[in-house]
């Protein structure tokens, strides 16, 4: 047997990421100013993004697929990474946990997501998922002296491990029935042997679906999300609400449309109720929240429900719409969290809804930005949130799921109620106490990027839509 150098071009971004992440880890030992580490992480992301442009292709016998689909998602992850780092820099020192490992963990976590997005094999998928998840568990518990953070990490970790076990069990069963773990081969074998209706395979599919539903926080596998989001450091909440969710959708798209492509009838029967429950519960429970992070957690659950519509549609357009939506969601959600983070200062928690009363009077700019993000989350034009939802709904309707969309729009209208409440508190109430903003140029930059993203996609979505469509074309 002869050792051959595999074609590494497609994996270059991941390799770069690994190397640079390790460098950041080492740099932490020598650099005292942790802001510099943050800067290094951003540079890392930028370099990786550069390598992404030339990374098309397949490697490791189809185990690693660097197609347009994965590249699009990787861009979302990198954007998520950059924005998260930008909003973290100041926040970490406010929370007094300014450690360099934070950045390398985020980098590794992002690497895990990138692997997930590119996985062409269930084994790779599993490892990517665990790399992402384990890093995120640690990040969620990063505030070691904070009870809530501990609890968040514990709940996230244990339930995550529980869900992973199901994923593995499902994977094992799929392997046992098809003799392979390669997604394309699975699809081929199922089609060839007419296994689509096989109860055991359906059970396996359900187990896999459950694990992914857990990652995207879909009902009833969402239970961890509110607690983890509330307890985790705010920057990580922002990160978690976008990154792992997007990664979850990346693998759902890949696994369900490729590996289980022949079982669409079966898995849509599973996913449609899940999607409806997710939208319903997320939006409805969010109404009675008093903690903004928790509210956004439920909102994030709800948004997963919307995005599932694109998967359910199961068409290239549907997939593209999920991708666009995840990008949009990254901008608007991290934007919102950036504002939340600014309110955290000294001993002031700033995560209660009532802390937002009168913000428009004391900090009109921050309030204005929050307003834009809230309306975007609601899905009011001309913000990106609307375009994203529009694309999702359109693809779902085209695939014939008008009734599901009808439910979705109703819930979307209900969601206006709690997003508007934030706006209402900021603009229509008098400030109770003066809130000092812990702003920094980095957060400013993050907000600017988020704002531009929200407005640009809202006004000229064409570029992103075309990009997503082209990306899906090579799927």
């Amino acid at each position, binding site marked *: 047997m002869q050792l051959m150098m595999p074609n590494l071009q497609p994996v270059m971004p991941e390799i770069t990421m690994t190397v640079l992440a390790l460098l950041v880890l080492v740099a932490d030992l020598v650099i005292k100013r942790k802001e510099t580490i943050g800067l290094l992480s951003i540079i890392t992301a930028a370099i990786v993004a550069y390598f992404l442009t030339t990374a098309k292709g397949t490697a490791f016998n189809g185990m690693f697929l660097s197609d347009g689909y994965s590249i699009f998602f990787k861009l979302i992850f990198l954007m998520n990474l950059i924005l998260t780092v930008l909003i973290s820099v100041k926040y970490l020192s406010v929370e007094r946990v300014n450690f360099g490992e934070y950045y390398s963990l985020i980098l590794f976590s992002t690497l895990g997501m990138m692997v997930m997005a590119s996985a062409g094999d269930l084994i790779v998928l599993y490892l990517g998922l665990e790399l992402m998840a384990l890093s995120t568990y640690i990040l969620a518990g990063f505030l070691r002296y904070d009870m809530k953070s501990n609890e968040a990490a*514990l709940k996230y970790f244990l339930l995550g491990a529980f869900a992973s076990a199901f994923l593995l069990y499902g994977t094992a069963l799929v392997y046992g029935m098809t003799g392979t773990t390669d997604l394309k081969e699975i699809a081929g074998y199922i089609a060839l042997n007419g296994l689509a209706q096989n109860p055991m395979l359906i059970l396996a599919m359900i187990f896999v679906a459950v694990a992914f539903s857990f990652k995207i926080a879909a009902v009833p596998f969402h239970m961890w999300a509110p607690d983890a989001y509330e307890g985790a450091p705010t920057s990580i909440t922002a990160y978690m609400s976008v990154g792992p969710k997007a990664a979850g959708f990346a693998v759902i798209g890949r696994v369900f449309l490729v590996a289980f492509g022949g079982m669409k009838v079966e898995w849509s029967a599973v996913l449609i109720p899940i999607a409806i429950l997710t939208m319903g519960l997320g939006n409805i429970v969010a109404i009675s929240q008093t903690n903004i992070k928790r509210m956004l957690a439920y909102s994030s659950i709800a948004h997963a429900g919307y995005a599932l519509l694109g998967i359910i549609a199961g068409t290239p357009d549907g997939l593209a719409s999920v991708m666009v939506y995840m990008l949009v969601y990254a901008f608007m959600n991290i934007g919102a969290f950036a504002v939340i983070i600014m309110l955290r200062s000294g001993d002031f928690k700033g995560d209660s809804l009532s802390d937002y009363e009168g913000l428009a009077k004391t900090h009109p700019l921050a309030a204005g930005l929050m307003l834009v993000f809230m309306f975007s989350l609601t899905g009011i034009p001309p913000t990106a949130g609307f375009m994203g939802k529009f694309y999702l709904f359109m693809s779902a309707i085209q695939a014939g799921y008008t009734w599901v969309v009808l439910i979705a729009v109703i819930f979307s209208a209900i969601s206006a109620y709690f997003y508007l409440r934030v706006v209402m508190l900021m603009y229509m109430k008098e400030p109770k106490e003066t809130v000092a903003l812990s702003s920094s140029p980095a957060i400013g930059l993050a907000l600017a990027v988020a704002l531009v993203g929200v407005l640009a996609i809202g006004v000229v979505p064409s570029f992103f839509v075309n990009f997503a469509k082209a990306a899906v074309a090579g799927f």
Partner: protein
Amino acid sequence: MENYLLIPFLPFAAFLINILFGRAVLKEKAHWVSILAVAGSWVVAVMTLRDVLAGKTLNENVYTWILAGDFKVSVGFLIDQLTAIMLIVVTTCSTLIHIYSVGYMHGDNGYYRFFSYLSLFTFCMLMLVMANNFLQLYFGWEGVGLCSYFLIGYYFDKKSASDAGKKAFIVNRFGDFGFGLGIFVIFLNFGTTYYAPVFAQAGSLAAKSYNFLGFDVHLMTLISLLLFCGSIGKSAQMPLHVWLPDAMEGPTPVSALIHAATMVTAGVFLVARCNPIFSQSETALVVVALTGAITSLFAATIALVQNDLKRIIAYSTVSQLGYMFLACGVGAYTAGVFHLYTHAFFKALLFLCAGSVMHAMGGELDIQKMGGLRKYMPVTYVTMLIASLSIAGFPGLAGFFSKDEILWMAYSGSSPVGKIVWASGTLVAFLTAFYSFRLIFLTFHGKFRGTHEQEHHLHESPKAMTIPLMLLCVGAVAAGWVGIPALIGENIGIHNGIAEFMKPVLGHAEGHGTHGEELIVMAVSVVVGFAGIGLAWFMYMLRPDIPGKLTAQFSGVHKVLYNKYYVDELYSAVIIRPTIWTAKNILIGVTDAKVIEAIVNGVPAAIGGVSRQLRKIQTGLMHHYATIMAMGIFIIAALMLMRSW
């Protein structure tokens, strides 16, 4: 005739000047603008009448007002015999009353406002009579109603005045409701709203029936009755007469001009104008005649017992308007218009005299508190006496001729209800004479019954007021001479000028009686007139104790009459209060609050409730989370397995 546009637009210009500059610039000189304008109109109107007498008529569109599909209507003018008469009536009365007002309104702080309203009114009234289509008629119709509203509520800080104005407007709207529907039906059947083509087609459509709200009805009857609804409102006929007595809250010149001489007669004008339509429907005519007869009788009975000077005259107006409708209803449009024309003079005169009395009495209106004014204000007394004689049908005066014409036409005409309405008309003639002279006797004769202070203040009115009185008095005496009936005229070689004149427009109603009968009818009316005067003299001059005794003896009847048959109360109980009650208790209280808002607020509240319940699932305890996850897995698995087994 070429300058006909000046007739309405001179007053309109005056209105604009007054309303824009009156308050700041003109102030107490505001009347000059209005008087000059309306006098100018009068001059042009007289010239126009001359042209019409010479046989010229005019029907001209000025510009297209509304155009929508096949619906087209212009601002256009029709000047024919009927218009010409009306122009004279309106401009004459208006001019005189403008002049009168200079004295009457002197010193009022809304002086400019008063004159601008008067000018606006004159404009609208002239637009009404000069219209050549129904919609412009409607424009003038509502316009005069508006001015009436403003002028009745002229003393707007008085609640009663503003109430009265509002009431007048709204009650009129009830009539206009039918009027508007009438216009719709006309348009939908004739395809136009211009008089000329409508009247031209009326004959050919006479037999047509029309499905209205699911009922097949005779088209001409329907149109006539709907239009007549408007007349009922505007001319204060039963059952929409309630606004007119209240309208006396306005300054007296207004009562004279609007609520006696001109606006209220617009209803009669409408019926006369639409005579080609009305003539096609016997039913409609009977309704018109009976409405007129009943109203005149009804109002006259009320007038018997009222003590308010102006209200008595107001009921008298209602009664006389009933007379005019009675005439139209028996097909004698000319007689109706003739009475309209004579009535304008003597009724305006009566009101202006009343105004003069009020002026002297310091605003007092209760005739029980007057008496013996004859010696203080001789001009007023004489003119008012003549006016009363005229209305009572004293032979030779204006009222005599027109009333006689009506009664004769009713008696001799072909109307199925002719005899009945004649009888009622004759009775009304008696009552009219009675209450008119009750008024005269109580006001001007006997001893003064007011306060000492008032007595001290009594004086004749200024020239600006008395001169119009005298001029109108000429009219009250002589206006009827243009319509001397053939019976008398033949002997002295005078034609019934007005009948001849109006014939092209209103046709000619033929009486079917002998000269003998005509003579009897005339004699009866004269006799009852004198009887009424005599009775009044007996009761209020000779035996002033009788009215009190009668009141005591027939207290029930008196009460009903005094309270105007409780019509206002009836409306309040049947229409106004139930409507507002419904609005408050059903629409706001139930439909809006308990149904729609209950859903609108209830659904979010329910969602909020569900939200608060659902959040309890999130117990914070991890094993619950895990159990729910596992349960979810099992449920999905079970369902899917059952599905695919």
